[in-house]
């Protein structure tokens, strides 16, 4: 936690005071001479040919999709320093886009699980998929980082909707805001309506047939009912998708946190509240079940989403545990690996072009070999190796 905070601050300082900053080299759409870039900024069209190339995401799109999270913090700071968010098109994302393009939306939803060591590029692949979903007209249910809901809960209250379960009012409101930013225009266009009446209290009722935006607004204004609103919202969306009113894409990062044995919430009698005791868990687990159609579920499992004792293996069966595995089974596992030679070269070229790697040795084969072996071609390690601090 401390380490990434420091990097954030220092990268911001670097950006202000560096004289050979990347701001002097603007990113334009028409750069085609670079082998490591591609012009194709619509992820719907990304194919194998775009492999190991960077495509840029414009600022308004970035604000819309990732304001509530979704990009790793350090990567976001770095993209601000390097004057533009560029994501490398890699095999896992291309595979997912291919599957999503070819999905039979009448069949029950398929679950895709991205797995790999920490720092290998799963979150960025998911971000790519989120951008794809938005471009392809999916309604996005995007949970940027699940452990944030359980490891760093600000307030947990007993649920108003369900006895024995817990609410997370602040996190719920944040997420509703994120959802409405991502999908606002689409919901407005689709005009989805509720199919049930939701009674929140004596005076607050959401009648049947009211627009979903009303439900969202209620959640945004009334933190007490926000979690309940999310449950209702997800339920409605599932129903809407099944009845072909909209197409739903569920993207969850750090899914194994739902099955983690720890959270930071402790009751008065010192017993721990497990993630399975939270209402939001139920809502999302219901959504990731394959009892609906006209959508897709893309999920990632990461060792860092679990407490340190449970990070032995990056594989899905270990991280999900018995309950999680049975919940998600059958799923399509997609491994995210370290950079291959082409991707690594591309990353280095990008850094050199953005003036992030300034030593002349970085352009030589020897220098690149040194970087390659010292980082082990691990994406996160390379980013840290090359960082000024």
């Amino acid at each position, binding site marked *: 936690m401390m380490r990434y905070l420091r990097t954030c601050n220092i990268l911001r300082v670097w950006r202000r005071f560096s004289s050979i900053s990347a701001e002097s080299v603007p990113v334009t759409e028409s750069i085609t001479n670079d082998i490591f870039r591609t012009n194709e900024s619509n992820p719907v069209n990304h194919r194998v040919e775009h492999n190991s190339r960077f495509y840029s995401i414009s600022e308004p799109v970035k604000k819309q999709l990732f304001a509530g999270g979704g990009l790793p913090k350090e990567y976001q700071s770095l993209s601000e320093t390097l004057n533009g968010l560029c994501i490398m098109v890699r095999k896992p994302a291309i595979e997912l886009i291919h599957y999503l393009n070819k999905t039979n939306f009448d069949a029950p939803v398929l679950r895709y699980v991205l797995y790999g060591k920490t720092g290998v590029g799963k979150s960025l692949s998911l971000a790519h998929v989120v951008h794809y979903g938005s471009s392809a007209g999916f309604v996005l249910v995007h949970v940027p980082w699940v452990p944030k809901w359980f490891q760093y809960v600000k307030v947990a209250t007993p649920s108003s909707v369900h006895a024995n379960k817990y609410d997370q009012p602040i996190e719920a409101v944040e997420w509703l805001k994120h959802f409405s930013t991502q999908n606002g225009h689409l919901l407005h266009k689709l005009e989805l309506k509720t199919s049930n009446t939701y009674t929140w209290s004596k005076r607050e009722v959401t009648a049947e047939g009211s627009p979903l935006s009303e439900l969202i607004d209620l959640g945004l204004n009334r933190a007490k009912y926000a979690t309940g609103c999310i449950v209702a919202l997800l339920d409605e969306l599932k129903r809407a998708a099944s009845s072909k009113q909209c197409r739903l894409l569920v993207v969850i990062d750090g899914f194994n946190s739902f099955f983690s044995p720890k959270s930071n919430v402790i009751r008065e009698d010192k017993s721990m509240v497990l993630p399975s005791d939270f209402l939001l868990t139920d809502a999302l687990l219901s959504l990731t079940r394959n009892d609906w159609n006209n959508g897709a579920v893309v999920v990632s499992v990461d060792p860092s989403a679990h407490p340190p004792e449970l990070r032995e293996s990056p594989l899905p069966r270990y991280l999900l545990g018995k309950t999680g595995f049975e919940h998600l089974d059958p799923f399509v596992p997609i491994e995210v690996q370290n950079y291959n030679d082409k991707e690594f070269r591309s990353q280095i070229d990008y850094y050199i072009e953005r003036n992030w790697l300034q030593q002349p040795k970085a352009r030589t084969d020897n220098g690149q*070999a*040194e970087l390659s*072996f010292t980082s*082990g071609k691990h994406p996160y390690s390379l980013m840290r190796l090359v960082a000024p601090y």
Partner: protein
Amino acid sequence: MAALREVLIFNSKCFRGVRSYFCSSPAFQYSSLSPNNASSNVQKLDFEESDTKRISKAMKSYMERAKIHDNFIKEQLHQYNIGKRHLANMMGKDPEFFTQHDVNEAIRYLFPSGLYDPRARPMMKHPDEIYPKRKAAEFDMNGRPFHSLFYTSKPNYYNLLHDLAVKFKQLDNHEDKMIYRGIQDQQASELFLFGTDWVSKESVESVLLESLTDSQYSNLIKTMERFAQHRYAVREKNFIMQFRHQLAAQTEIQKIPELMRDESNRPFTTFSARRKRSNATVKVIGEGTGLISINGEDILYFKRKQDKEQIIFPLEFCNMLGKVDVVATCEGVGMSGRVGSIRLAIAMCLRCFVDAETIERMRLAGLLSYDPRERERKKPGQPGAREKFTWKKR
């Protein structure tokens, strides 16, 4: 009075020699100022007239000490020889051909010691090796020194310099003769000093049996250097080589292991190295793609940047980064120690894959030397090895 005379007579009868010394003590001499008195005394002690006349107490005690030391050394030597014979009998060997090496073996066998310092363990050596050498008597009974340069207080040192000057003159004379005969171009075989170096100050001191200051030693070496550069210095080769010692050849120190071949006919070597309580065994396989495996994991086994760079350093130095595979297993306390041991092992293995020039460059870079640094122990009365508790003035 009678009693006093009796004492005197008793004295004179029993301690004759002592009385003569007593009589010739300076106190006694100077107390009787008149020459008549002195001569009358001399006349009384006829039998020891000239020898004992001018010996002072200091000289006397010096002679005694020298004698005692000589006797002591003789006694020690005698005991050493007898001891050797005893040992030989005990070990069942022939006493006639029992060497010092055999003596050492016997002592190690009969008196096994767990002490750390070799100098603290039991030993039996020739007295010359144990007891420091002393100079023989430097002046005679009359107090006249034997050596003409005695009053320089370092006669052997200045004698050596004097000898050098004399030899210099001789070589110059020889050179003159050669020039006169017209054969100056015939170069005498050159004095080959490569692979040797001047002896240290301690060695010179032990030979001369005199302590030297640093400036005296450097003066000596400069003179010898000048002497060795003379055209005909080879004539005094033996003299010069007395003051030079052989330097150990580098090639004798480290032997490069041979390349072995594995099942797929790829060349490989193995090496085990230590650093600071950790050890590692590394196998470097040629014709590789640059795979690095440490205890089954890749280079990210080490979390710190400096550790990863240490592993890469020998490979990068020899430009072997993508050309060999490295399979390492390491154990022991501490990341730094493990990393250091792996690095040394990789460098040692790479010697088989590179040319001699690169090996020399590696040696100069310090890649091939064992790092002997260990954690220094904490001392009582201090919180750490060097750190002291807060000093309070009162």
